[in-house]
């Protein structure tokens, strides 16, 4: 038995993008053939290497994280490992029974009951009928849906649905598990349950390839990590140091210029246009925020037609992607907010003496409640906060370990003894 469970050898994946639209219509192909336009089209095409010469090895029983920004090639790697798409060149060897999870609940059908979906989903994920029967009770117990097991899943709450879907996946017993960040679902309690289960899997001698944005999860679950950027391996090694380096690198990006460019390049939407997002202190734009002064987050946007339920909101995160707070621009309105057509400036104020002296990320999103999201991906803005507010001079250089540092009101009185 070999010690290496997964060996990727110079794996590359080429996508052709450009003028040619895929999927094409049959009519276009016919006219192309007749008018010799094919060659001309080829000239307009552009090659995009989603992955370029990726090599790595994973030892049996090891958990490895694949990290990187959006577009770094993580999901392409995942698709190749799951055999959903083929590499253009290179070779991967996997020794052992492989299961891959790109999402939970693949193939779930709303009309089928919980019981039926367990059987179907189990089969899709590669369990045999005998295995499904054998683990059925365990799956139901894990998902906590005993009472509804014969109800069609379309009547399930989204929490129940996710729990059931994850439960099936969690009871796969592969030797090699390829998994996407399916953990980013459900409430906090369920997320930690999933993480524990994943940890179990990893500590039972199975090999895990974990593709994720969730840096704390990568650190806890994985021994080592491969860091991808623009389709190439930047480096690989011990997961803690890889994550730290990756976070340092990504915080230097997503600065002001990137955001301006990103906003300019957003695809047009018939209802909404994001015009700008700026950080202001004393009405001046800044990326170097002082925590002793209030910070205004200014969002400028245009609404083309009066819309019910439109809202713009942001999340404040630290570099480990932990959400510290979320705020909605019309969150204090009682009824469903109605946003009139026109140009708007929304400013949210984070008070002075609230942020800690550390880097933060701002994730801006917009949507129409219960209808759709208005930004395909959140706009990410990274900024640094410097200490300037109240500070105890007796401990220079002391940094709070807290993710925020609000100045709390202390009442210190002598107790009457």
């Amino acid at each position: 038995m070999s010690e290496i469970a997964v060996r990727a050898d110079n794996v590359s994946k080429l996508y052709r993008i450009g003028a040619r639209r895929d999927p094409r219509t049959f009519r276009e192909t016919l006219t192309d053939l007749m008018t010799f336009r094919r060659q001309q089209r080829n000239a307009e095409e552009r090659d995009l290497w989603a992955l370029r010469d990726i090599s790595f090895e994973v030892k049996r029983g090891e958990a490895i994280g694949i990290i990187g920004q959006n577009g770094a090639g993580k999901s392409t790697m995942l698709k190749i490992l799951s055999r959903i798409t083929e590499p253009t060149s290179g070779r991967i060897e996997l020794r052992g029974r492989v299961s891959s999870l790109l999402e939970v609940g693949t193939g779930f059908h709303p009309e089928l009951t919980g019981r039926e979906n367990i059987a179907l989903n189990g089969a899709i994920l590669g369990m045999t009928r005998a295995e499904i029967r054998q683990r059925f009770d365990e799956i139901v117990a894990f998902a906590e849906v005993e009472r509804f097991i014969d109800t069609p899943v379309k009547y399930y709450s989204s929490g129940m649905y996710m729990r059931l879907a994850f439960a099936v996946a969690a009871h796969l017993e592969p030797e090699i598990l390829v998994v996407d960040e399916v953990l980013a679902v459900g409430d906090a309690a369920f997320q930690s349950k999933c993480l524990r289960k994943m940890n179990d899997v990893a500590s039972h001698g199975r090999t895990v390839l974990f593709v994720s944005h969730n840096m704390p999860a990568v650190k806890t679950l994985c021994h080592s990590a491969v860091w991808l950027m623009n389709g190439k391996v930047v480096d690989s090694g011990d997961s803690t140091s890889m994550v730290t380096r990756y976070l340092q690198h990504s915080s230097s990006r997503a600065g002001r210029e990137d955001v301006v460019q990103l906003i300019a390049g957003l695809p047009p939407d018939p209802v909404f246009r994001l015009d700008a997002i700026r950080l202001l202190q004393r009405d001046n734009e800044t990326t170097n925020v002082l925590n002793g002064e209030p910070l205004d987050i200014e969002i400028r946007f245009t609404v083309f037609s009066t819309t019910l339920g439109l809202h713009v909101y942001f999340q404040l995160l630290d570099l480990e992607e932990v959400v510290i707070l979320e705020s909605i621009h019309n969150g204090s309105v009682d009824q469903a907010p109605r946003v009139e057509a026109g140009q708007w400036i929304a400013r949210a104020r984070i008070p002075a003496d609230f942020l800690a002296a550390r880097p933060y990320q701002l994730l801006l999103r917009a949507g129409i409640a219960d209808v759709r999201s208005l930004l395909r991906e959140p706009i990410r803005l990274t900024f640094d906060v410097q200490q300037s507010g109240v500070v105890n001079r007796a401990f220079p250089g002391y940094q709070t370990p807290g993710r925020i540092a609000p100045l709390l009101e202390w009442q210190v009185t002598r107790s009457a003894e």
Partner: protein
Amino acid sequence: MSSETDALLIIEPSPAWRTVDLGEVWRYRELLYFFVWRDVKVRYKQTVLGISWAIIQPLFAMIVFAFFFGRVAKLPSDGIPYPLFTYAGLLPWTFFANGLGTGSQSVLSNANLVTKVYFPRLLVPISAILTGIVDFALALLMLAPLLIWKHTMPAAESLFFVPLSIGIAFLFVFGLSTWLSAMVVRYRDIRHVVPFVIQIWMFATPIVYPLSFIPQKWRWAVSLNPMVPVVEAFRSSIFGRPVEVGGLLYALVVSLVLIVTGSIYFRRLERLFADVM
């Protein structure tokens, strides 16, 4: 489990032209069973009338055809009561037409699976067509009361051709679906052409009229359509008439050619499914 411990899976670019890995399809037979099971369940769950749909569909077509073509247009029916005559023709035809409709769309309509999990992609069109067998079987049961009503009894020895002709219809529609289901992923507009073709095809096949209705000198041209011998053989065997085996053989050969070429085409395109969908 231990026998699989040393299973070695190699992922690398596959050759552009390759045939079907039948061993792999066989290993995934349980999944095939689950796909069919899912489609059957869902199909009858979503409707108020449930299973009776399988019977209502050809039955209503029979009533409509019997009225317009039998009564109004007075089309001949080889001496068989006209409603029975069309119903017996509609049975293999409905199986074929539904199979072609769902089979050709199958890869696209299972995009959520194809882009998320690996399995031999050919299972998708196969299961889509197999699902139609259930409908067919139910509609076939309905034939019994109709036969009793019209005092017609099939000859036992010719009933052998019932499964045979349906088997050939299955192979034929499977061959077409391997071509079409892969093509639809690439050329989406084909999707809109298929229902239209099915409609025309039905009238080009002797279902509401007998083959003898076609003038002798054109009969060879009409018989190029492999569904002609299939429908004729099915109907002849129900009514105990001689079956023309040569036509069935022709349909079988056409089907096999379609299956072989179609699955090579399918395998060539399946590498792109996830990238295109």
